[in-house]
């Protein structure tokens, strides 16, 4: 398998061509899997050839015992702790990852791979279909969270990493972390699952369907063939992002941030301009998102989350998914997260208790909603740091007394 590393640019233009470029030739390390190493997908398709784009930070120790896999969320990517090659913004989890951070790059070897179905270099609908020479579009097979995890396991095999000290993720990343642990318990020493659930709720599926319908209602979507038509379903994807973004926040956070304040005006314009700051903010969120994300990829990844239900793969009994498990768990939820509310985490914890797993569970008080896991929440960092240190100590990693 070939590995390449291209230099990560610092001042990229935000441009569709450049993003399309990232889909096939990402500014990341790449693991390429040929026809002899297909990815067996849940839908029955063997995907081959395919590639995984990933970033690593820190050094793998001689015992290969300090590797931590970070799983990214729906619209995240592998650029955890470096400048993003498309947006030029800092990595998406620089509060959590870095020297002296809970995911300490001076002690751990951090790996993050773009998920299969993504648009930042791992094979997905925006990648070129080798059979046609055109982007896959809707010809790309539907992928699931277990498919993403299977692909990551192939990447780790390729990197020669048998066991992970930890698998860490929030939201869709947390789903992957749980799937990792259920599918490969012997490869995962500890699991930090943040603001997530073992299954996607009806309400969450409903929000995703809203987003997908917004994309598909955009005439520029062209049944997913927009690259060939030279168009982009910007409006549909922006609306999808706006709706989703509301679910990542909370009533209290929106009120604190914007209230009913007006945007650059004192009186209403009696029009449909963005009179309110909150409208202006959402429009900005929508338009900046479409610069960096592929609309078809958004359809596929939301679908993957919708299909996720660990218990369903174990006769409907969640505890069976984790029976006899030795992995150490830390489950974290946030009080104001209504997308993945604490009750979902508690159900997971009950199942883990029933499996006699070693589990910690903390609910963090914050008004910042689901997105709290991406923000500066000191209590969350303290808990994450202590959990990982305790796992490192139990695994016999040196230098963990400090």
């Amino acid at each position: 398998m070939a590995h390449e590393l291209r230099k990560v640019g610092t001042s990229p233009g935000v441009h569709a061509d450049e993003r399309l470029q990232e889909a096939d030739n990402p500014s990341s390390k790449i693991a390429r899997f040929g026809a002899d190493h297909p990815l067996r997908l849940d839908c029955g398709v063997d995907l081959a050839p395919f590639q995984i784009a990933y970033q690593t930070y820190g050094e793998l120790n001689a015992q290969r015992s300090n590797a931590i896999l970070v799983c990214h969320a729906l619209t995240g990517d592998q650029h955890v702790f470096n400048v993003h090659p498309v947006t030029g913004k800092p990595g998406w989890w620089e509060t959590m990852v870095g020297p002296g951070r809970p995911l300490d790059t001076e002690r751990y070897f951090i790996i993050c791979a773009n998920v299969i179905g993504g648009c930042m270099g791992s094979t997905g609908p925006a990648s070129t279909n080798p059979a046609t020479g055109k982007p896959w579009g809707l010809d790309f097979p539907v992928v699931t969270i277990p498919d993403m995890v299977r692909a990551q396991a192939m990447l780790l095999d390729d990197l020669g990493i048998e066991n992970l000290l930890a698998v860490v993720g929030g939201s869709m990343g947390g789903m992957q972390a749980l799937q990792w642990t259920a599918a490969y318990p012997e490869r995962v020493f500890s699991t930090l699952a943040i603001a997530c659930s073992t299954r996607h709720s009806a309400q969450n599926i409903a929000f995703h369907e809203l987003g997908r319908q917004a994309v598909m209602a955009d005439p520029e979507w062209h049944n997913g063939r927009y690259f060939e038509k030279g168009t982009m379903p910007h409006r549909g994807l922006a609306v999808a992002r706006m709706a989703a973004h509301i679910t990542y926040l909370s009533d209290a956070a929106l009120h604190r941030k914007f209230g009913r304040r007006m945007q650059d005006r004192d009186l209403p314009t009696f029009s449909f301009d963005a009179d309110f700051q909150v409208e202006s903010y959402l429009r900005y969120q929508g338009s900046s998102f479409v610069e960096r994300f592929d609309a078809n990829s958004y359809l596929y990844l939301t679908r993957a989350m919708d299909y996720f239900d660990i218990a369903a793969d174990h006769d409907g009994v969640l505890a069976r998914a984790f029976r006899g498990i030795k992995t150490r768990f830390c489950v974290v939820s946030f009080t104001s997260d209504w997308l993945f509310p604490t009750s979902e985490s508690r159900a997971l914890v009950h199942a883990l208790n029933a499996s006699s797993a070693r589990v910690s569970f903390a609910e963090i008080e914050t008004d910042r909603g689901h997105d709290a896991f991406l923000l500066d929440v000191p209590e969350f960092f303290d808990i994450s740091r202590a959990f990982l240190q305790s796992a490192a100590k139990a695994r016999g990693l040196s230098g963990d007394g400090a």
Partner: protein
Amino acid sequence: MTSQQQVLPLSPAIPRGGATTRGDHLLVAEMVAPGSKVLDVGCGDGDLLQLLESRGIDGRGIELSREGVNRCVAKGLAVVQGDADTDLVNYPDDAFDYVILSQTLQATRQPKAVLENLLRIGRRAIVSFPNFGFWRMRLQLLIGGHMPRTENLPATWYDTPNIHFCTIKDFVQLCGEINVKMERAVALDLYGRPLRLNAPWWFWNMFGEQGVFLLSRAGKER
């Protein structure tokens, strides 16, 4: 009082250099066999769990207060947020060697159901609780005419979380009623030191500031 229950003597707790370790914690730790798996119900800030883990015991905890849980998890302990009254039912039978209920029984809504659950989840239970029969409690009610308050139980009657106080005598009676075997029992004085071993029950009930009991299921296994 079920006087036929035999109470075995306990090896005296040895105070550690730190001197900050609570007497009842040391006593509880002495009761736990090395290498066991333990659930601490109402583990507070995790001091007892830390003491147990330092002795090579696999400890888990449940704590009601979010602040307590987060402090425990930040110490690297395996603690979950939960309520002894409602969440113990989620644990399978025989999941632990010992289930500890330290200074928490009196704060539960259904102490009897909680006690039964402890001995379902664990092969043994260790229960410690403040003794409301302690002479200073009696004196405050008798002479002062008000609800007793002590250094260890400073809350007023209207904001105390402790809704089910009992005496050592009451507790022993409950153990008899639900067919629980008392393997060891010890009363501690106000400073957490064990009272002399050969004292009669009435003496413990009068001069013990708290009781610590090692319990197991009586008779046949269910």
